């Protein structure tokens, strides 16, 4: 440990760490473009200048290791002037087309101009022009004029994906970011460059022009695309006279799971969530009233007491699984988690993507839910009613001829609706809360509440109505049962950070 003084405040820091890391960690505002925690220092933007006592000139904080007794000033008039001049230099050829730029509102250039700039333009020569709105592949649009050449995107393709599609061409003010001829950006993590870009040079074709960012509100959720369960920001907005809708997913920093990035498949999976919110209840494929279907389902459960099979999806939350177990014990039903469709051997890679597409298969181990086909075969001999929770694989139970009634409770509409006697929609992943255990055994809490316009309920509420109990929120279930199962971890702790589960 070392002690340094920053603007007359003493802070304790790790010896040998980069100055910018420690300053940012202690909430000191340091403008920067090229430094990124994952990509490290590059020292090209010169924006993070600080005054260090004993040094002749201002130093860049991103390439200065801390040493004991350093005295640093970040707000003196001298250093503000230096920053202003560097920013002026960065903005010399910038087109200042904020009205059409998607980054406006979350742009470092805009923020730093308001922090340290505030000058009038002194430029009276024409600006250098470059190519604008170039589609460089993988849903990324490049604007070379807006670029500050921090090379975060170049370093991302070099160090993280190792695909090296991007590079810097030419010198001086003709210097631009570009792809190589005929070699578009093509890797499963390409859209992360949009988040990495501190300015509007790289924007997402998918999000472009759909919403100005200052309208968006954000929930903290996890991705349900595969068993990695990357942490997400769910950016949504409810327009006046329109329904609540998700406009984009952004990666949320989680050191244990996904770092600062997510894959493109996961990033674009918000579209399915938006579609799911329009699902309506059905009887034999015909649209019906939600309450009617629910009542009918409730009476069927009573009618077939003791002859019921509950098939669980491995993507349900721990709370939902527990609740279904309770339902099974009340109606004397059999439970199975056997499943084949949530697996894709072509999806995974050695970084964030996993072949197992379910988001909570480890939850089956924790709650001791059987997922072997032998047990399913054994159970299903004297079953008359099968209820599929969160899944649409009717082919799994088609061979059992003794099953008279097939019901699905799922967020998305069934692919073959006529095969189900009843279909009851439940709230989709981004509209409910719940805990999930990812493939590496990290327990995470997803907390997203994108509103429904239809009367659809969350699965916990639906089952709670069947059981006639009042336990329908995650907090209550944790208090009653789940806390004991997960080694007395508090829900509040899981909400703040992911926790490694050891007993799986």
């Amino acid at each position, binding site marked *: 440990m070392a002690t340094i003084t920053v603007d007359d405040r003493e802070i304790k820091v790790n010896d040998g760490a980069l100055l910018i890391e420690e300053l940012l960690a202690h909430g000191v505002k340091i403008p920067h473009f090229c430094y990124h925690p994952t990509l490290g220092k590059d020292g090209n933007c010169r924006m993070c200048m600080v005054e260090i006592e004993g040094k002749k000139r201002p130093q860049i904080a991103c390439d200065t290791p801390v040493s004991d007794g350093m005295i640093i000033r970040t707000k003196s008039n001298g250093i503000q002037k230096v920053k202003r001049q560097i920013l002026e230099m960065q903005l010399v050829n910038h087109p200042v087309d904020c009205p059409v730029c998607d980054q*406006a509102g979350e742009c470092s250039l805009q923020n730093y101009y308001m922090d340290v700039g505030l000058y009038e333009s002194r430029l009276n020569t024409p600006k250098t022009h470059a190519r604008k709105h170039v589609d460089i592949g993988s849903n990324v649009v490049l604007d070379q004029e807006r670029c500050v050449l921090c090379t975060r995107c170049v370093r991302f393709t070099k160090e993280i994906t190792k695909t090296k599609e991007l590079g810097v061409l030419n010198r001086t003010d003709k210097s631009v970011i570009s792809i190589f001829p005929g070699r578009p950006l093509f890797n499963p993590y390409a859209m992360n460059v949009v988040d990495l870009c501190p300015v509007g040079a790289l924007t997402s074709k998918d999000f472009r022009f759909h919403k*100005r960012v200052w309208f968006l509100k954000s929930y903290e959720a996890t991705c349900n695309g595969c068993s990695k369960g990357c942490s997400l920001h769910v950016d949504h907005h409810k327009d006046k006279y329109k329904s609540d809708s998700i406009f984009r997913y952004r990666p949320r920093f989680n050191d244990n799971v996904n770092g600062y990035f997510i894959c493109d498949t996961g990033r674009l999976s918000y579209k399915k969530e938006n579609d799911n919110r329009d699902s309506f209840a059905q009887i034999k494929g015909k649209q019906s009233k939600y309450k009617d279907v629910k009542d009918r389902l409730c009476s069927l459960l009573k009618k077939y007491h003791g002859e019921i099979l509950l098939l669980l999806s491995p993507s349900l939350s721990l709370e939902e699984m527990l609740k279904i177990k309770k339902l099974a014990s009340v109606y004397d039903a059999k439970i199975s988690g056997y499943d084949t469709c949530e697996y894709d051997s072509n999806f995974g890679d050695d970084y964030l993507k996993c072949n197992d597409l379910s988001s909570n298969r480890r939850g089956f181990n924790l709650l001791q839910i059987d997922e072997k086909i032998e047990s399913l075969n054994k159970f299903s001999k004297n079953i008359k009613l099968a209820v599929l929770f969160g899944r649409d694989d009717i082919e799994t139970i088609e061979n059992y001829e003794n099953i008279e009634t097939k019901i699905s409770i799922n967020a998305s509409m069934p692919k073959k609706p006529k095969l189900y006697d009843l279909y009851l929609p439940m709230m989709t992943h981004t509209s409910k809360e719940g805990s999930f255990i990812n493939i590496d055994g990290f327990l995470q809490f997803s907390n997203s509440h994108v509103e429904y316009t239809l009367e659809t309920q969350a699965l916990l509420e639906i089952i709670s109505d069947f059981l006639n109990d009042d336990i329908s929120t995650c907090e209550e279930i944790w208090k009653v049962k789940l806390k004991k199962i997960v080694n007395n971890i508090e829900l509040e702790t899981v909400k703040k950070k992911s926790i490694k589960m050891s007993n799986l």
Partner: protein
Amino acid sequence: MGIKIVSRYGNTLKEKLYLPAVISGLKVTFSHFITNLKDTSKIETICYPEQLPKDITSRYRGVHRLKKREDNSIKCVACYMCATACPSECIFIEAVEREDNIDEKMPKKFSIDLLECIFCGACAEACPCDAIAMDTGIFSFVKTKREDFVLDIDILLSHEPMKGGN
């Protein structure tokens, strides 16, 4: 966030004293008062709506219009600043990629609900491209259906600035 300080007028001694401004204002009031006392037929009231006002200036905040560029194409770039600034949230915009190489972005839909609008002029003030204005001089807007008060992009573009405004 910093604060950009803009220089303000009104710091001279004459302006700070207030009295010269008060007196010059009262001069106008009293000159009207005396004129009206002398000859009541000259009092400037009109029989509306048979007679229409002729003294509406171009600063009057009438029904909005969307401006055009020199090549007659739409000036608006759908930046949403007007919708953001609007206190009654009555501006509805949908943006789309502009394909004609004049700019990158343009509105696909742009409608203003005049029943919700409070004619404050914040939209015109917020516009960074000077693409929306309220200088049409249209002070009365009468329709029979509520839906007709929602002006779409074509109607807004068809509005012309007031003629002979000063």
